[in-house]
C-alpha cells in the first residue's frame, strides 16, 4: 500500500512539475512558477511524504498523519499550479477560475499544517496537554478558513488579473485576514518554548530538537520579508533573484522540518548538541536582521561607505544581544544548564573554588559521586578538588580539568559555559596551593637536613670537646681549673642552645617516629597537665608537620594566656581527613583575628589544604579544631 501511495504521489509530483516546467520553457513567465520554486516544492512534497510514512511506520501515527497532510497540501498546491498554468492560462470558464484561485491560495494551507505538526509532536511527547490540541485545531482550522476566504475574496495578481474575486471585502478586512495565519507560524515555537522548561529527562533531546526546528519557519519568514523588501521596495536586488530567495525560503521549512520531525521522534533520540544548532540558528536570525537593516539604510543613504559603516555599526550593536539571546535560549532549553547557572550565581567560591565547582556540578547533574580532577602545572599530575593526587581518568572538560563518575557525558556540555570561569579559577588556585606546598616541603626538608647536620656533627664535636675539657680540668691547678670550668659551662650552654635551635620547627623525632612520639616529648616538658589521644599511625610528612606546629602554637598560647589547668589534645583520622582538637579549660575568649600567632597558624593550615576553627568551650576554655586532608 505504501509503495503504491509513494509511487502515485511521486508520479503526480513529477508530472505536475513537468507541466509547469514545460509551460515555463514555452515562454510563459510567471514568478511563482520559476523552475527553482517548482523543483523545490516537488522535492519538499516527496521528502514530507517519506517522513510522514516513516513516522507512521515507527508508531508515531498521529504526527505522521499530519506530516502526510502537509505532503498532501503541497501536492495540491503543486497540482493546482500545474493546472493554473496549463489550463487556467488558456481558458476562461469557472473551472479555469477555480484552479487559478486554488493555486493562488495554495501556499496558505501547508504553512498552517506544518505548525499543527509541531504542536501535535509536543502533545505526543507529553510536553503540553489539552491546550496543545486546542491550539492545533485553531491553527489548522484558521489555515483552512483563510485559504477558502482567500480563494473567494482576495484578488489574484498578474498574469491572472482578469479573474475577479467572488466576494467583495473592504480593504481593511483584506489586510487583517492574513494576520492570524501569520501569527500561527509562532504556534510551534510557542509550544516548544512552554514545554522545554518542564521537559522530562528522556524527552529532553527530542523536545530540544523540535524547539530548534520550530524556529526555522520564523527565520524563513524573516528572509521572505527581507527578500520582498529588497527586490520590490528598495530595488537592491533583481526581481528574479528576489523570487528565487522567496522560493527557497518558502520551501526550506518543509524540507528541513518534516525530515527533522521524523528524526526527532524516531526510535533513536537525537544527540545532545542541539544547543549548538540553536546557537547557529540564532546567529542566522541576527544576520538576517543585520542585512535587513543595512538594506534599508542603503536605500536611504547613497554611497557604499555609509552602507558598510552602517552595517558594521548594526552588527556591533546586535552582537552582545545575540550572545545574550543564545545564552537565554540555552538556559531555557537546557534545565541542567539553567540549574548550573542558578547555583553558580548563588555560590560563593571563597578560598575553595575547586570544591565549590565540584559541589555545583554534583547538584546540577544529580551525580553525588562526581569527582572533579584538576591538572597541576609542570607535569605534576592530577589532583582531586581536595588536593589529593590521583591518576588521570574520566571525561575531559577542558585543558586542565576532568570529571569522573558522570552518568551522561552529554549533560556536561550545557554546564561548562556556566562553570568554565570557576573551573579556571580552581585550576589556578590549585596550582598556587601546590606551589606553596612545594616551597613548604623544600623548606622543611632543608631544615631537617640542617638539623641532622647540627646534631650529628657540630653538637657531637662540642660535646666531645666539653668532655675533654672536664677531664683535663682534673689534672690542673686551681687557677686553671677555674678557667676551664667556665669554658666547659660555656660549651654546655652552647650545646643546649644548639639543641633548641636544631629542634626548630620540625624536630627530628617527628620525622623519625611520628606525631605521637614528638607530641609526647613536647608536652612532657610542659608544666600543665596535658592529655594526649594520638593514634600510632604515621601520616604524610606535611600533615604531621602542620599538626605539630598547631599543637606547639596552641599549647604555647594556652600557657601564656589561658590560665588553664588541663589541656586535651586529640587526633582522629578517617576518610582521608585528620581532625585535630586542642581543648583547654582556661579563660576562653580567644579570637582567631586577635593574635598574629593563631592567624599565621591558620594560614599554614590553609596552605596545607585544611581549615581551622577557634571557638569557646563549655563551661569555659577554648577549643581549636583543625581539619587536614591526608589522602
Amino acid at each position, binding site marked *: 500500500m505504501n509503495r503504491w501511495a509513494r509511487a502515485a504521489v511521486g508520479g503526480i509530483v513529477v508530472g505536475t512539475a513537468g507541466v509547469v516546467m514545460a509551460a515555463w520553457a514555452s515562454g510563459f513567465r510567471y514568478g511563482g512558477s520559476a523552475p527553482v520554486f517548482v523543483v523545490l516544492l516537488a522535492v519538499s512534497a516527496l521528502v514530507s511524504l517519506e517522513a510522514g510514512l516513516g513516522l507512521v511506520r515507527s508508531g508515531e501515527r498521529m504526527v505522521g498523519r499530519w506530516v502526510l497532510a502537509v505532503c498532501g497540501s503541497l501536492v495540491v498546491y503543486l497540482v493546482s499550479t500545474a493546472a493554473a498554468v496549463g489550463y487556467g492560462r488558456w481558458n476562461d470558464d469557472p473551472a479555469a477560475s477555480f484552479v487559478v484561485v486554488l493555486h493562488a491560495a495554495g501556499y496558505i494551507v501547508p504553512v498552517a499544517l506544518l505548525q499543527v505538526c509541531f504542536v501535535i509532536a509536543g502533545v505526543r511527547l507529553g510536553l503540553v496537554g489539552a491546550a496543545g490540541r486546542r491550539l492545533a485545531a485553531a491553527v489548522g482550522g484558521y489555515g483552512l478558513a483563510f485559504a477558502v476566504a482567500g480563494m473567494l475574496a482576495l484578488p489574484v495578481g498578474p498574469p491572472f488579473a482578469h479573474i475577479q474575486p467572488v466576494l467583495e471585502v473592504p480593504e481593511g478586512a483584506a489586510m487583517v485576514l492574513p494576520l492570524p495565519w501569520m501569527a500561527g507560524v509562532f504556534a510551534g515555537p510557542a509550544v516548544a518554548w512552554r514545554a522545554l522548561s518542564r521537559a522530562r529527562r528522556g524527552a529532553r533531546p527530542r523536545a530540544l530538537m523540535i524547539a530548534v526546528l520550530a524556529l526555522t519557519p520564523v527565520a524563513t519568514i524573516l528572509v521572505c520579508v527581507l527578500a520582498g523588501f529588497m527586490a520590490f521596495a528598495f530595488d537592491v536586488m533583481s526581481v528574479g533573484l528576489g523570487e528565487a530567495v522567496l522560493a527557497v525560503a518558502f520551501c526550506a521549512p518543509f524540507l528541513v522540518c518534516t525530515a527533522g520531525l521524523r528524526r526527532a521522534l524516531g526510535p533513536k533520540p537525537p544527540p545532545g548538541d542541539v544547543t549548538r544548532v540553536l546557537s547557529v540558528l540564532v546567529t542566522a536570525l541576527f544576520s538576517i536582521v543585520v542585512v535587513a537593516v543595512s538594506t534599508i539604510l542603503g536605500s536611504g543613504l547613497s554611497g557604499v561607505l555609509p552602507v558598510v559603516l552602517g552595517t558594521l555599526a548594526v552588527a556591533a550593536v546586535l552582537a552582545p544581544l545575540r550572545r545574550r539571546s543564545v545564552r537565554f535560549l540555552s538556559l531555557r532549553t537546557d534545565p541542567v544548564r539553567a540549574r548550573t547557572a542558578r547555583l553558580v550565581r548563588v555560590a560563593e567560591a571563597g578560598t575553595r573554588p575547586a570544591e565549590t565547582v565540584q559541589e555545583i556540578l554534583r547538584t546540577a547533574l544529580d551525580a553525588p559521586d562526581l569527582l572533579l580532577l584538576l591538572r597541576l602545572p609542570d607535569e605534576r599530575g592530577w589532583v582531586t578538588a581536595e588536593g589529593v593526587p590521583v591518576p588521570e581518568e574520566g571525561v575531559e572538560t577542558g585543558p586542565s580539568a576532568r570529571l569522573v563518575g558522570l552518568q551522561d557525558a552529554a549533560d556536561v556540555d550545557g554546564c561548562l559555559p556556566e562553570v568554565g570561569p570557576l573551573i579556571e579559577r580552581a585550576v589556578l588556585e590549585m596550582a598556587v596551593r601546590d606551589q606553596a606546598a612545594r616551597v613548604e616541603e623544600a623548606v622543611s626538608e632543608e631544615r631537617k637536613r640542617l638539623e641532622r647536620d647540627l646534631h650529628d656533627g657540630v653538637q657531637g664535636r662540642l*660535646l*666531645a670537646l666539653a668532655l675533654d675539657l*672536664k677531664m683535663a680540668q682534673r689534672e690542673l691547678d686551681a687557677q686553671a681549673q677555674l678557667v676551664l670550668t667556665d669554658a666547659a659551662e660555656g660549651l654546655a650552654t652552647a*650545646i643546649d642552645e644548639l639543641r633548641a635551635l636544631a629542634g626548630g620547627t620540625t*624536630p627530628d623525632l617527628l620525622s*623519625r617516629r611520628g606525631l605521637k612520639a614528638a607530641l609526647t616529648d613536647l608536652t*612532657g616538658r610542659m608544666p600543665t597537665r596535658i592529655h*594526649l589521644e594520638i593514634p600510632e599511625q604515621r601520616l604524610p610528612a606535611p600533615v604531621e608537620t602542620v599538626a605539630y606546629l598547631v599543637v606547639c602554637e596552641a599549647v604555647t598560647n594556652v600557657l601564656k594566656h589561658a590560665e588553664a589547668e588541663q589541656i586535651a589534645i586529640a587526633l582522629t583520622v578517617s576518610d582521608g581527613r585528620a581532625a585535630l582538637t586542642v581543648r583547654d579549660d582556661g579563660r576562653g575568649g580567644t579570637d582567631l583575628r586577635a593574635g598574629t600567632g593563631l592567624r599565621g597558624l591558620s594560614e599554614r593550615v590553609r596552605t596545607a589544604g585544611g581549615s581551622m576553627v577557634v571557638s569557646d568551650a563549655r563551661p569555659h576554655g577554648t577549643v581549636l579544631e583543625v581539619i587536614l586532608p591526608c589522602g
Partner: protein
Amino acid sequence: MRVAIAEDLVLLRQSIARLLTQNGMEVVAETGDAAGLIDAVVAHRPDLVIADVRMPPTFTDEGAKAALLLRDRFPAIAVVMLSHIVEPALAMRLAADRPARFGYLLKDRVLDLDDFVAVVRRVAAGGTAVDRQVIDHYLVGSGLSPREREVLGLLAQGLSNLAIARSLVVSERTVDSHLASIFVKIGLPQDADHNRRVRAALLWLRGTGASTDVPPGGGNLPSQA
C-alpha cells in the same frame, strides 16, 4: 670492668673511652655502628656496653635495636644507651620490663663526669639508670605531692635509698618512710629488693602515672621479646 663503646662520633667515643679508662675500666672495643658493636660483643664478651641510639647507616634506632638483641642473647651484659634527644616511650619500653643492668641517658650527661661514671658502675653492678627527663615526663600529673614525686622520680631513675637521701639532703630514714607511704598510696607491694622496687615504680609510672602515652587501662605491659 670491661666495656665496649658504640658511638659514631669518633671524638666523643674517644673521650668517653678516656674517661672510663681514667676511672679504672678497660675499654675492650670501640665501634662506630651497630653491626660492629655486635661483632665486638661476640668477640670480647664485655661486662658493659655503651651504645648510641642513633648510628649509621640510617641514623634512626640501630643502636636501640642492637641493644635489645644483645640483652636477649647475653642477659649478663649491662647496657647503657645514650641518646641525643629524650624519647620517653622508647626509654620506658626498654627499661620497664627488665630494669636490671640497663641505663638510658641523654648524651649530655657524660659531662657530669662523676655522675656518669657512677651510673656506669651502678648499671654494671646490676642496677638501673633512667634519665631524669624521661621520669619527669611520666611524673606529670601522677597525683602525688611534689616531695613524693621527687622521691619516686629518683627511685625510678635507679637511685638507691641512700643516694636519694643524699640527693634530697635528708636522712635515709625519711626516704624510707616517704617510699613506704608512696607505695601504699599507689597500691604497690613493698619489696625488699631494690631492683624490683625500681621496676615496680617504672611500671607504675608507665602504666598509670602519666596518661600521655598509654591507652586507658594499659598498665599491663607486653613483654619485650
